[in-house]
């Protein structure tokens, strides 16, 4: 096994970031339908704003 530190450190940071996403995902999945709908609308709005370059 290679003894370099760069790739293992990157993979460790990636793993921690993935766990942060997992925690957010689990809360979103457990959220009541109106909250989910609002968040979905919000994500669409942000994408739209980026698309028309107003942000």
């Amino acid at each position, binding site marked *: *096994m*290679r003894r370099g530190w760069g*790739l293992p450190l990157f993979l460790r940071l990636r*793993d921690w970031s993935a766990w942060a*996403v*997992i925690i957010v*995902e689990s*809360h979103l999945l457990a959220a009541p339908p109106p909250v989910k709908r609002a968040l979905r609308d919000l994500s669409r709005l942000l994408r739209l704003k980026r698309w028309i370059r107003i942000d």
Partner: protein
Amino acid sequence: MVLYNWRGQWPMRRWEHQRIFAWKTCFPGPVTFLNIGFPFNPTWVSQLDPDLVMVDATALAARYTPIGLGGLRRAMDAVPARARRVAAPLDEFLGLQALRALLVETRIDLLLTALEPVLWDEVYPVDQRSYVLRRFLTAYVDDRLMRRSSSDLAGRPISVSYRAWETPAWLGEMGRLKREVGLRAEAWAQAGGHRADVAVDGQRRLAGEAWIRLLGASRAVVGVEGGSSIVDPKGDLLTSDLASAGSEGWTPPSSAIVLPRGGEIRAMSPRHLEAVATRTFQVLVEGDYSGVLEAGVHYQPVRRDLSDIDAALDRSQDPQRAQAMVDRAHAEIVASGRYSWRTVVGDITRQVLA
């Protein structure tokens, strides 16, 4: 390197977390984890050049979807040829043909299975396997659980506790018993004026340390072996409507094999080891419990028709007898270190890297 696959569920059940991450503390060398549920570059795997790749049950469960299967294949294709490969499936009764093919395709060296050895040649035919098999429990005891101190049974506030998830019909009698044993324990507590903390059908789920705290506050816990009454070689069960699979009168797909009563796939569940570690009196439906728990010595057995469950639960009210049984189980199973992650990871490492 440990390959696993996890998305969208937090907190994890304690034993699942330990199964993946115990390697970090118990493996004699640096360990890197790769969650293949998120986008990854296969060159990371080849550049890391691991000596050993452990494919966790969650990564093998990626075979259920084409995207997941593709991700697992990409990761395993990038594993250097010299690396030893170990796989540990937990759900062999689902999508068995795909699993068998995957194990050969990814050149697995050692397969860790919770199946009883008498079933090995039937589930993994000798002429189709290029790997060695080794018995593996669904969970082991981690350092923290081993060091945990427990109060005496007499001082615990809850008489009996239990949790069961929604048990689909395709689990057969094994699933029915999981639910029934909880309901019977609750009825026993109500009749005797005892305090119970029982929930079935997936209600009031507990994960992480919350479950261990409940066990530690309970004098007794009921239970049954984990397993299934159906083997689904082609994976049709997973593509069929699982919602209807939970209803009465449901019939399995024609490709599924319904195992005869008494011939089901059975194994000790992680919760049984956790109960030993918390010194909780176990009232369990009689069984082999992967050869770890011995009836009458480590747990109070109950007949499969549950006809004697009330008498068995009454025995948990005898503090001296119950305490002697849980202390003995703790000494032989937990304190001995025989079923610890440290021991099993060391044994596996010696076997594959020798």
